[in-house]
């Protein structure tokens, strides 16, 4: 789009009353914001259509202002990131109240994404690992971060780190979902256009296609019979044949379309960052069922051998992005403990 057109669009948009937009990141990596910047020159159309009342990444909007807004004053809030700490949850609840439409923006908010794999552990084991076991850590005193620390000058506060990372809709009511890690810039723009045009699907639905990555894959496919699952480093796949048929665990068949089948185009199997399509309930279950179904054996021993050899890490394979949002949400948790360790012991350790 040319600059002049941009300006035109800007003026046109300014003519009608501007909406209020908030973009917030909780437990995410910032990729969603970068991908949003990827809408490129359309960022000006966006600025024309909306007052960006809150987007800490690129503007200096303040939570205080959000707190002072009337409930529902924000028209649309794109919320990315999972709920990892009390601060994340506070912001989720605040923005839910202040926003007419709350969009779970990106894989983290939608299904937990990679950080959700932390749900295989709890706060204590994560703290012990990060602040003790890691090889370059120097911590003889066994110090752990504290929610409140007394330093000579006074108290210092840290948000509470939860045992379980939760998705946005496990925390507050979500109106729409925009999946992807990160969502492709084009999809983001399409969603924004839909919002601007008020052409939104029924609440609770995902803004995106219902087909899967295979729909956009040019590789030739035939009936599937799998004798062996291969690791990516074990084989140089043929560029024209379905990766799954070559034994690579490609998540494409179970993954919502939207990226345009990018990874298989560079000869890498899809890793499933767009989550399940349509109203599929549990990404991992879909993939498990599909892969198991085409295992080419009826012998229990052989079947187990094929699975155990080829898929040494089932959770990481089937729930890479969706563990927090899955039916089971997390691995079995040991009896809950306070990972902060002895307050007294470490409180003064600074």
């Amino acid at each position: 789009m040319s600059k002049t057109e941009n300006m035109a669009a800007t003026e046109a948009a300014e003519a009608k009353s501007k909406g209020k937009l908030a973009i917030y990141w909780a437990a995410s990596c910032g990729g969603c914001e970068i991908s949003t910047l990827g809408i490129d020159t359309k960022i000006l159309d966006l600025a024309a259509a909306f007052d960006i009342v809150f987007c800490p990444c690129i503007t200096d909007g303040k939570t205080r202002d959000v707190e002072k807004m009337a409930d529902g004053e924000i028209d649309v809030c794109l919320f990315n990131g999972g709920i990892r700490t009390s601060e994340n949850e506070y912001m989720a609840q605040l923005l839910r109240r202040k926003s007419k439409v709350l969009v779970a923006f990106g894989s983290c908010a939608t299904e937990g994404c990679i950080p959700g794999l932390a749900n295989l552990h709890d706060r204590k084991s994560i703290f012990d690992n990060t602040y003790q076991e890691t090889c370059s850590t120097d911590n003889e005193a066994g110090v752990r971060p504290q929610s409140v620390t007394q330093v000579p000058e006074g108290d210092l506060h840290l948000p509470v780190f939860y045992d379980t990372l939760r998705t946005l809709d496990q925390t507050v009511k979500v109106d729409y979902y925009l999946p992807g890690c990160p969502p492709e810039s084009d999809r983001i723009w399409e969603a924004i256009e839909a919002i601007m045009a008020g052409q939104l699907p029924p609440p609770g639905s995902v803004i995106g296609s219902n087909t899967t990555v295979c729909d956009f894959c040019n590789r030739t496919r035939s009936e599937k019979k799998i004798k062996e699952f291969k690791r990516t480093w074990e084989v140089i796949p043929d560029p024209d044949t379905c990766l799954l048929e070559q034994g690579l665990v490609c998540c494409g068949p179970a993954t919502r379309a939207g990226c345009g089948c990018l990874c298989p185009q560079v000869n890498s199997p899809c890793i499933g960052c767009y989550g399940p399509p349509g109203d599929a309930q549990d990404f991992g279950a879909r993939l498990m069922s599909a892969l198991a179904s085409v295992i080419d054996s009826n012998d229990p021993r052989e079947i187990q051998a094929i699975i155990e050899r080829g898929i040494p890490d089932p959770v990481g394979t089937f729930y890479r992005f969706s563990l927090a949002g899955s039916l089971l949400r997390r691995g079995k948790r040991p009896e809950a403990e306070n990972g902060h360790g002895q307050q007294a012991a470490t409180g003064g350790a600074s």
Partner: protein
Amino acid sequence: MAERVGVYVCHCGSNIAGKVDVADVAKFASEHIKDVVVARDYKFMCSDLGQKMVEEDIKKEGLTRVVVAACSPHLHEKTFRRACSNGGLNPYLLDMTNIREHCSWVHKDPVAATEKAKSLVSASAERVKFQQPLEPMYVDVNPTTLVVGGGIAGLQATLELADAGHKVVLVERLPSIGGHMAQFDKTFPTLDCSACILTPKMSEVGQHENVRLLTYAELEEVTGSVGNFHVKIRQKARKVDFDLCTGCGICVEKCPRKVVDTEFEAGMGMRKAIYMPFPQAVPRVPVLDTESCIWFERQRCQTCEKLCPTKAIRFDQEDEIIEVDVGNIIIATGWKPFDCTKIPQYGYGRLPNVYTGMEFERLCNAAGPTSGKIVLRDGKTVPKSVAIIHCVGSRDLNHNPYCSGICCMAALKFAHLLIEKTGAQVYSFYIDIRTNQKDYEEFYQRLLQEGVHFVRGKVSEVTDATRRPDETGKTIVQCEDTLTGRQERYPVDMVILMGALEPQFDARELGLKCGISCSMAGFYTERHPKLDPVATMTDGIFIAGVCQGPKDIPASVVQGAAAAARVAGMITKGKVMIEPIVASIREEDCSGCRICNNMCPYNAIEFDETRAVSRVITALCKGCGTCVSACPAGVIEGAHFNNSQIFAEIEGALWDAVPPAGVPGESESAGVSAS
């Protein structure tokens, strides 16, 4: 708009009410299950009054869904579906849950039973809300029937249908129809000549205007479904022009090459390279066995070709594929005899005077190699003492656990023939004597009179290693007489092994072609062991004779007729209903990953290359739902068992379990909301 659910809890007299507090269950349903507007308990729901109650409520209370908690849906689902229809409700908006077989009859504690009944009702009620009205589909039935197997069962079925005026295609693997019965000499217990009663049926079939007879042919492929099967049959090359051949037999007579006949003569006699298995063979058209023919061995001879008056010999004849369309299929592929060499301690194949039952049948058959004279393999010695060993490969966990049913009677028949023809001493080694049909026991008594020595015990060994002088030149049967408890050695001239009846070697393969399943043993599985013994789980495919399980001639005939009757019924009806419980693919959402493509054993899923989507051929779908759960995208819908229905059922079943933490935001944020 919310559904209006009616829940009916059956007392089944005291069958259910005796254990389950049915009133409490009904109360639970009305108070705790959302959308339940009527919840009643009643003495006998299946009674006319019970059904009327449902009909009335549908009309008066405007029920949109019905749950009946009673016995197994396998017994009364149809009943209550009808009741719903009568009430003006689509029958598929009913769900039946089983609180009798699965609950009141099997649980001791009334409280626990009642609690379980509640869960089952809850599950059913939650499920039924998601059920959708379905319309059964009807297809026309092709009046032609395919019968596979020309043994007595197949012949019976063929004639029943053909005589009733229906076209039949009969396929037989061997050169002639007749099956094993044609090999027998006499049939028990009446001892009438097997051939005499069989051959009339054979020739009748051979000449019947409604029968298309394809011998020396095998089933190649079956596609389609009930009412409209498309069948490919391989007509093996006879090397003889079927139409030109007059059956004069000169070719057979003049053929210089003789070989042992392992098929019909069970290895006891010879046949020519070009042959008819037996004199009364139908059709009377010989088959040239290329394995043994001199021409095919070294391109010489051609005697038959030269001498054939009608020039019917065709050395260059090839197999051909014959395609037929039929509405129903009757499988009557019979059995194969147990390979007695599998039990080496009985010496078969090693000791000259050990025979199989089938060998002995030929031995004493008037049309057999010895013209019915019972002699040892030297061709002259008449046995003075004979041992008949029962249950060889039957009732034996090392081989076949089942009882072959007919061997006892066959053994008695042999004993009688031996005494009659040779006056030999006959020892019959049995585990139990099973003579449980009309006139069988009488036949047993008769043989006791005739002086057969019955020894109760399992033979441990048959050997030629002599220990006592009186054993020289004899075959010794070693056995513990379990009545006297003593180990005995019986020196005899001849030993007959009553081998088991086993499924045809290719029974499973054929089963797969037709889409019917086999038991562990390899006999075809009937739809219901008692109430539906000749139908299979696959509509339009029936089974008759020993392929369904060991049985004697009368039973085989009965099943042949029964199968024919079932088929005739379908033909007269003209249409067949297909349950609407089938899978369907949302093509607009299908990405053509092709995971589902080899999920279906009925090939009901096809891949549309042009549109790159998979599609379910409804007529072929049996509704198992395997593809539904295989689809990685969840775009395959299983009618009447779709995800939302089953999810709801799971939630209902666990109504009393810990609910997972839902969205905490609303409730917990209360303390956080002010700011």
